[in-house]
């Protein structure tokens, strides 16, 4: 700790900080632009000027930039003397000379850091009367709107996009007073993290293009704390609503999980909530037409009710714990199934037991960013868990930071640190079926078939510890590769092994755990992290139910009622098997928010709430349970699936807390869920928590075309929130912070006021409770047996699925901007295989795999491992069969 003096009063601050960090953490208001807690200092904007004094006797002092001055013991400063104030006002006046007076038409207006800082700096009157510099804007794709005239040249955008997120296609151009930030030509920003520019930019240069399609003034938005549903990492988000439509997603800070950033799938995947495919009324099959038609709720419930013990329930890894539990209660534990096919089911339980078994740590996403060597087996992270890829990039950067410290440069002094480090990075080894975006940043990469990836993993574990099983007949080059990876991992202090189910291979997952165990046995603080496909994959797996295949078996020979919870089975298994399952049931009931292929086959469809319209809990890949809170009152008959189940059961739960109490009693592993957020009857200063900001407008006018009486505030029985602008606005637990307003801080930067220290945990602790703990200190055990070398099967090829950040996930693919970025169906082969099969780019082939067929155009990809055929995961037009699997490819003859 160091003691610094601000206006002669002593303050304790953490060592190794700069003055800006220290002052903001202490709660002082110091204006800034270029500094960002995740991007550190460059001293570009000159806005954070304060006056520093040599000692007590020094009365003159000198102006320094707070962000560039270390907060060492005995530092004496003043923030508010006349000279510093005048300096700051002058700097902002000069930054504003070219800034247009377009706040009234700017999407950023009302939550603009530049507006806040202009007011904070006291630049009240604009005296510049001359022509302003103007630019042409670019079309940057479906996510980001570009308005360069507003730029104040703080360089945050390129520092985030290039330095932090390893993006290549955003750069500063030109010089002097006409610097331009954009692409070298119009086009889609390629980084899957581009949406963060919206929040990183202190003003309205980069704004949310999807929000613009249905823009609402930011102070007119109703928001609640939520969790992203588009992958398994559980990033925290703040969705916002107005007039019954979800308008946008913003980042919600969780120091242990996503920190300051989101991926573009998470930010732009929300439009499915407003989608044309939504179910808003109960539907039942009309006897006359055979079509699904709206029916009254009571009628639908009567049609959906099954005699005791006569129903089979299929749960879903994209539905909340509460909804899955409610279905389990409805049908009985032994008749409740996970809705995940056998292979995925097996992989999930295997991953959970490996995580629990230890001895390796299970890292949070923040801790992923602190590893000093990383080995990834079988996961294309930028496409399956983008934020984890972003954290791996940070790990690579932090791993070499000690070199800067050795050179006497503090870690926060970003420009000289990066200048010194150049492209030095921490160790990263990748083993995947095809090239990934991360390959260029990896020291070692290998593209191979799943079994070969597993063999490499086993070989690395064996090289680290002779007790680990070794693969037989390993090629010399693979053995050398394994030895190299083992050596680099052993040289680290906090090595991290990442794997997951994308290759559909249990051997890969076991190999990853063996490597982690071997590293622990060598005395290293090793960590093991698994990526999972869906937002509640782990939560559902913790409920310990049978697989979809088991459900199919149970339904064999007929079943009275089949209740399917938020699950499109046609995406999980081949058409014939699903048809057979649905055909075996006399009555098929689907609870979901979207009318997908499975729902279209149902006899009754009950309209379920999305994350935005309901409350529930999800468990992420590290086993962290997190609560999402209803953002908007559901329209028409929409309600949470757990409410529907309660009504079908005839014993509806009064509210979420009652359900959680029962869940904790029935499945004690979930007893902690009640702690995720304050209960519904919690009051703060005697009040509920407002979802709407205190500047929310039009509450008496919004419904005036229907009634001049102000409508009653909808009831929220499940959380401490209210759909109102009235309520408690003081300090509340992080799990129930709906937005980051603090006096003078209207932009996302207001977050500073909600953290224990800037960039640190949320005040009172980051949200979420870990349900999985690794048995640390457990003896290193080696499990599994290495598979044999990848065999060939004559004319058959091994078909693998290649994930795509945009398009592979079901719900985000229903969102317009994301769909625009999704690939068209293709069949990828590498050059040698294409030549061997006499295929060339664009040829049309018939793929036959399992008992499904597809007609696809050929894409020749140099980077795909030899012998493999790749198809995009989860894209319409690709059969939903279990991959990898053996299949045949036939070229379509001309005509």
């Amino acid at each position, binding site marked *: 700790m160091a003691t610094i003096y601000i206006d002669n009063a002593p303050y304790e601050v953490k060592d190794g900080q700069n003055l800006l960090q220290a002052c903001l953490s202490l709660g002082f208001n110091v204006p800034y632009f270029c500094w960002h807690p995740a991007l550190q200092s460059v001293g570009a904007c000159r806005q954070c000027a304060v006056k520093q004094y040599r000692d007590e006797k020094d009365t003159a002092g000198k102006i320094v930039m707070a962000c560039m001055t270390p907060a060492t013991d005995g530092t004496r400063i003043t923030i508010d003397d006349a000279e510093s104030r005048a300096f700051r006002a002058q700097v902002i006046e000069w930054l504003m000379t070219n800034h247009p007076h377009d706040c009234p038409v700017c999407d950023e207006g009302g939550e603009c850091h530049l507006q806040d800082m202009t007011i904070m700096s006291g630049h009240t009157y604009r005296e510049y009367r001359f022509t302003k510099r103007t630019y042409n804007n670019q079309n940057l794709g479906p996510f980001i709107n570009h308005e360069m005239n507003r730029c104040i040249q703080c360089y945050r955008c390129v520092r985030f996009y290039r330095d932090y997120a390893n993006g290549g296609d955003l*750069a500063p151009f*030109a010089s002097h007073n006409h610097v331009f930030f954009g692409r*070298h*030509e119009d086009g889609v920003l390629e980084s899957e993290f581009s949406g963060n520019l919206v929040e990183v930019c202190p003003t309205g240069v980069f704004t949310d293009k999807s929000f613009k399609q249905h823009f609402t003034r930011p102070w007119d938005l109703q928001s609640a704390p939520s969790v992203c549903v588009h992958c398994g990492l559980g990033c925290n988000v703040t969705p916002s609503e107005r007039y019954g439509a979800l308008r946008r997603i913003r980042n919600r800070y969780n120091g242990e999980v996503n920190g300051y950033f989101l991926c573009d799938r998470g930010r732009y995947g929300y439009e499915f909530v407003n989608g044309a495919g939504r179910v808003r009324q109960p539907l039942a099959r009309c006897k006359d037409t055979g079509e699904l038609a709206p029916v009254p709720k009571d009628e639908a419930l009567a049609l959906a009710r099954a005699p005791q013990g006569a129903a089979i329930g299929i749960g879903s890894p994209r539905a909340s714990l509460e909804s899955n539990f409610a279905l389990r209660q409805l049908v009985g534990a032994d008749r409740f199934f996970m809705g995940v096919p056998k292979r995925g089911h097996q992989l999930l339980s295997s991953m959970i037991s490996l995580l629990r078994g230890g001895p390796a740590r299970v890292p949070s996403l923040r801790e992923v960013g602190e590893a000093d060597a990383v080995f990834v087996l079988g996961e294309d992270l930028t496409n399956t868990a983008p934020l984890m890829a972003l954290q791996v990039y940070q790990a690579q950067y932090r791993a070499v930071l000690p070199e800067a410290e050795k050179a006497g440069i503090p870690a926060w002094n970003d420009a000289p640190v990066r200048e010194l480090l150049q492209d030095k990075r921490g160790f990263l080894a990748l083993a995947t079926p095809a090239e990934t975006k991360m390959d260029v940043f990896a020291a070692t990469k290998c593209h191979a078939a799943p079994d070969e990836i597993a063999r490499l993993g086993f070989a690395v574990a064996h090289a680290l510890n002779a007790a680990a099983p070794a693969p037989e007949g390993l090629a010399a080059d693979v053995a050398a590769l394994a030895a190299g990876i083992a050596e680099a991992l052993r040289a680290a202090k906090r090595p991290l092994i990442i794997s997951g189910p994308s290759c559909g291979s249990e051997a890969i997952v076991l190999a990853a755990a063996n490597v982690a165990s071997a590293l622990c046995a060598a005395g290293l603080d090793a960590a093991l992290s698994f990526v999972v496909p869906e937002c509640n994959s782990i939560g559902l797996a913790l409920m310990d139910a049978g697989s979809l295949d088991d459900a199919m078996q149970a339904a064999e020979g007929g079943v009275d009622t089949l209740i399917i919870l938020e699950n499109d089975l046609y995406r999980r298994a081949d058409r014939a098997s699903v048809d057979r399952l649905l055909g075996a049931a006399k009555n098929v009931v689907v609870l979901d928010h979207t009318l997908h292929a499975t729902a279209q086959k149902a006899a009754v469809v009950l309209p379920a709430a999305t994350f935005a319209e309901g409350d529930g809990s999800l468990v992420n890949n590290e086993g962290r349970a997190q609560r999402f809170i209803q953002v908007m009152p559901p329209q028409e008959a929409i309600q949470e699936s757990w409410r529907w189940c309660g009504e079908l059961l005839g014993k509806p739960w009064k509210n979420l807390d009652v359900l959680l109490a029962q869940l904790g009693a029935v499945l004690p592993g979930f007893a902690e869920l009640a702690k995720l957020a304050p209960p519904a009857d919690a009051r703060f200063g005697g009040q509920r928590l407002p979802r709407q900001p205190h500047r929310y407008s039009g509450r008496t006018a919004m419904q005036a075309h229907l009634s001049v009486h102000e409508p009653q505030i909808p009831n929220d029985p499940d959380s401490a929130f209210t759909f109102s602008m009235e309520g408690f606005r003081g300090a509340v637990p992080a799990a129930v912070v709906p937005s980051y307003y603090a006096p003078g801080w209207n932009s996302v930067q207001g977050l500073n006021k909600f953290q224990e220290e800037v960039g640190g945990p949320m005040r009172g602790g980051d949200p979420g409770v870990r349900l999985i703990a690794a048995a640390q200190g457990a003896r290193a055990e080696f499990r599994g047996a290495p598979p044999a070398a990848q065999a060939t099967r004559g004319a058959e090829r091994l078909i693998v699925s290649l994930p795509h950040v945009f398009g592979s996930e079901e719900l985000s693919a229903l969102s317009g901007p994301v769909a625009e970025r999704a690939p068209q169906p293709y069949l990828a082969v590498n050059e040698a295989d294409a030549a061997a099969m006499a295929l060339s780019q664009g040829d049309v082939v018939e793929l036959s795999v399992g008992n499904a067929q597809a007609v696809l155009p050929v894409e020749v990809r140099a980077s795909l491992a030899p012998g493999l055929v790749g198809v995009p995961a989860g894209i319409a037009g690709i059969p939903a069969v279990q991959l990898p699997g053996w299949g045949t490819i036939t070229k379509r003859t001309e005509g």
Partner: protein
Amino acid sequence: MLSDKIKHEIEHEAAMFERRSGACIDALRIVQRERGWVDDQSVKDVAALLEMTPDEVDSVATFYNLILRRPVGRHVIRICTSVSCWLMGLEPMLAHLEKTLGIGLGQTTADGRFTLIPNQCLGTCDHAPAFMIDDDLHRDLDPEKLDAILANYK
């Protein structure tokens, strides 16, 4: 496409740096010497050659005012517009040039012979006013001398 000669020269420069991207400025200079200016395709070609993104190369190209990113005439006149030259008679000289060539700053003559661009300081204030035509520096100018100088550049 870059000619083999250009590629060869860029490779020579790239070999002298620890990272290939270090040769970016030299590569742009070589392209401009051979072609008069740097077109969009060359930016992409240089990027591919030096293992950079086109954005990175263009970021460098647009930073330097001596790298030209738009087509120019056979000869480029860089007239010094800084304060010393202005004090010493820039304006009548510029007026004469504009009248004789029929173009303003930033423009190229219809016959493609000259491009006239402003340049902040040529570092020769003691001999102001001055301009450069291609690689030649001309100093202590006055409007009467201009026509004779221009006549040397066909």
